[in-house]
């Protein structure tokens, strides 16, 4: 995880911090969008998601085309008041040097949103392939922000400088 000062706008970080689910859109090999609901995690600079090798199709798509976007749209899954919406576009990288344990560095962030993960991790022997996981690391380039959550209106656009 990056130690740089936060790159993402503070309100977006606040959304990411509480979002239980975001919608990750990747581009398939035919050039079409395909969206996966996933738990978004962030350190303020990069956005992280993890994917079990069981559900690896998205990983193949990202390796073929790293351009992705992640939206935070659902008032139920993103419990903030007042409600805002955001879409984050960026380039993704699949990190899978160690699918067995590498993803566990994100466990504190994951645990904060889904405490039950510890229960399942203790029973790892029962679903071992679920815990062989790749990390999807998104470097954000642009954020579309709807202060009032109404996406029919104009979005505030944040163009972000690259993250080292």
């Amino acid at each position, binding site marked *: 995880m990056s130690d740089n000062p936060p790159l993402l706008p503070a309100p977006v970080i606040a959304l990411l911090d509480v979002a239980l689910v975001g919608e990750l859109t990747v581009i398939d090999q035919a050039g079409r969008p395909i969206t996966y609901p996933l738990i978004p995690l962030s350190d303020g600079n990069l956005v992280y998601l993890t994917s079990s090798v069981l559900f690896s199709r998205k990983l193949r798509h990202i390796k073929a085309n790293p351009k992705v976007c992640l939206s935070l749209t659902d008032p139920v899954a993103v419990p903030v008041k007042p409600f805002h919406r955001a879409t984050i576009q960026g380039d993704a990288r699949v990190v899978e040097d160690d699918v067995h344990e590498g993803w566990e560095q994100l466990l504190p962030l994951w645990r904060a949103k889904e405490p039950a993960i510890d229960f399942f991790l203790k029973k790892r*022997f029962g679903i071992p392939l679920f815990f062989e996981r790749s990390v999807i690391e998104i470097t954000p380039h642009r954020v579309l922000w709807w202060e009032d959550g109404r996406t029919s209106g104009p979005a505030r656009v944040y163009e972000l400088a690259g993250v080292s």
Partner: protein
Amino acid sequence: MAVLEVADALTRARSYPHAVLAYVGPDGYPVNIAVDFTESVDAAEVEIGPLGHDLRPAEGQEVELTFSHIRPQPGVGYDERRYVNLWGRATPRGEGLRVEVRRASGWDEADTPFFEYAERSVPAGRGYLDELGARPRLSRLWTVFLATRLPFLTATLVPVGLGGVIAARDGAFHALWFVLALVAAVAVHLGLNMANDLFDDANGADAANVTPTPFSGGSRVLQYGLVSRRTMVTGCVALYALSMGMGVYLAVERGWGLLAIGAVGIVLSLVYSAPPLRLVHRGLGEPVTALGFGPVMAVGTYFASAGRWSWQPVLASLPVALLIALVLYVNQIPDRAGDAAAGKRTLIVRLSPAQVQAGYATGVGAAFVCILVEVVAGVTPAWTLLALATLPLAWRVWRGLRAHYGEPYALMPTMQSNILLHLLTGLLFVIGYVIAVVS
């Protein structure tokens, strides 16, 4: 995610408060934004909008609509996961777009529980790991624990314990021979478990089973790639060799009759799932299990300890033989679709749910009547009536079978109770003998 019929997907979409429109923007990055929508199942269309003018796909461009739902569970995470994806071409309509839906996919954990969804994805996951040159890992301890299905050893401990206490009652208990008999029985049981996994992997029954539980569907170590077939074969052969070696030693030391009992046990353990007989495929798994984990183990242990044959352990082990057969019987219920697909026609595959439930009631009733009759007939000591204390547990299993027959994961507590029923009944039976010996 599974492919859905468009009409089905649109009907499902109705229940969501908003959609997420996704398309590939002119700069090559995907864009996704929340939108209001109205669907028409008959026209296979979705109207979305209003949309800002700067966030619109090109006319005729293929877009995707995603509908996603979870229910937050504070302190836990969330549940009720479901989503629907629709794809189609978008054309402008007023302030929004009309999407002609051509294809759809989705997942709803109410239809396909997460564990089943994950199990169905195992071949894809293993393929991906192969591409990475990686293998799933577990500690050696857990791998051995899983591959041998160690917790099922209770099936061995009960009849071996019974053979030992009956020998003690006859004044013929010898700790060393008892322990050696126990080790031989444990080895053959663990070897049998591994052999069963190897044969069920070879005939496709375990691969076809997408609803395994901790009590059913095999150890899965081969399906998950945790252990190679070669290692399983080696482990299995080693355990059988250990058992046979100890059996021969015990026969030399305690009497050649023991060799015949051991041979019966080994043959039963192999013909259970090995071709050409594959008795479990013919609906004969239960009698084979009853015989092997009842009279054969009890009388074998008795013989090893006492150095002679007796009918007492044969008769006394009948109740636990019935109960262990019922453990197999109930544990096969979640496997029935996979077993049927692989041509493994177990009793559960052959019978209707009502017949299976009636069969359970008959079997468990027979086990408890047997306990009672054997005491009345003077075969077993009166203290073994203690074992009747587990009757409420049998009732719980019966109710669980009726309530959750078609729900593999909801049936898990019932399977657990049934295993406990065999263990506790057997232990109380053994304790009854111990009290009779010491009093």
